[in-house]
């Protein structure tokens, strides 16, 4: 970050109780108090949420997009991890 650039925060909003916080965007703010206020003004003007998290963007560790295949490809072939892989006779009923 260059000198005097205002830090970036990622914003997560819980739309209502019972649902998880979900990423919705980012804001620039000098500190966490101002980040929360900015997130409220920018992302919840129409009742979009009941709770906000702000996280410094620099604190997020992300998987490498270049390793997408080795990370996620192996699960595609493991169809036995899904219930539909197994046969249960109709007579047994719903399982």
């Amino acid at each position: 970050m260059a000198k005097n650039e205002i830090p970036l925060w990622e914003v997560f909003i819980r739309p209502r109780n019972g649902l998880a916080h979900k990423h919705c965007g980012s804001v620039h703010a000098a500190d966490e108090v101002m980040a929360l206020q900015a997130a409220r003004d920018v992302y919840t003007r129409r009742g979009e949420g009941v709770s906000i998290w702000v996280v410094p963007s620099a604190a997020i560790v992300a998987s490498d997009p270049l390793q997408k295949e080795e990370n996620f490809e192996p699960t595609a072939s493991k169809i036995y991890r899904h219930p539909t892989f197994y046969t249960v006779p109709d007579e047994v009923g719903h399982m």
Partner: protein
Amino acid sequence: MYSQGLIGAKTETNEDEAFLAAFQARIDAEEKIEPNDPMPEGYRRTLIRQIGQHAHSEIVGMLPEGNWITRAPSLRRKAALLAKVQDEGGHGLYLYSAAETLGVSREQMTEELLAGKAKYSSIFNYPTLTWADIGAIGWLVDGAAIMNQIPLCRCSYGPYARAMIRVCKEESFHQRQGYEIMMTLAQGTPGQKEMAQDALNRWWWPSLMMFGPHDSDSQHGDQSMRWKIKRFTNDELRQKFVDATVPQGEYLGLTFPDPELKWNDERGAYDFGAIDWDEFWRVVKGGGPMNRERLAARRKAWDDGAWVREAALAHAEKRRARREATKLAAE
């Protein structure tokens, strides 16, 4: 806004053919491109230019309407206008965030705007002379913006498309509140109706210019269409806007300032007169009635806010240092 965002964008790119073909295949398969994906430099540069200029348009767009907040004719109108101007600020912020994912900083974009290097929509270089202008802006300018922005919700670049979905949801209130203002005036006293007509007369042609140059004169349209940054050409969108808007104006009992405007049964669309492209380019290049004032207002806001930004950063640093000291003392 919008198609004008491509003005000044350089789409040329110099990756090898295999890279470009692989990228085009992803685009053609309607895969969204995300921030860390490989992309041609020209694609990145075009998007930075377009999204940045779109963001600037939202921010500068707050000025002509902000001009009327204190003079709105009722508390209801004032509350609605405040909410609308606040939305425009929010839209600017969503868009700046989307542009930042491409590796440009907020400060860089702001500097380009203030230095006059980045453009914003030509429409905001016209003055808001009467209250009816607020109605005309909501109805026509936001109407034209929606026409442009709905296809952008399917733009190939993920963060831009997602920002546009939020913007479009909010924008429809803007157009309806504008139309309601026009309707109230059009159904009011003869003087009020005359105000509405005068606003329509002044905003109609500049609204048509918002869609940018004719397809035949648009330098970057083809590549942007291939990359699915744009989905429709400038002329297609302009025609859609005219076809949607003319009946709305007729309902108000107002007339459009274009003697050549008439329904063409054969085309199933309205024919309309020639746009004054000299005026368009004059305004884009800085010679519109309000160019100077708009940039001066943005520069003043930036300069006057400098001490606030500095103080906020200094305060954050002081609190951070104190927390560190307390932690050290406790250990």
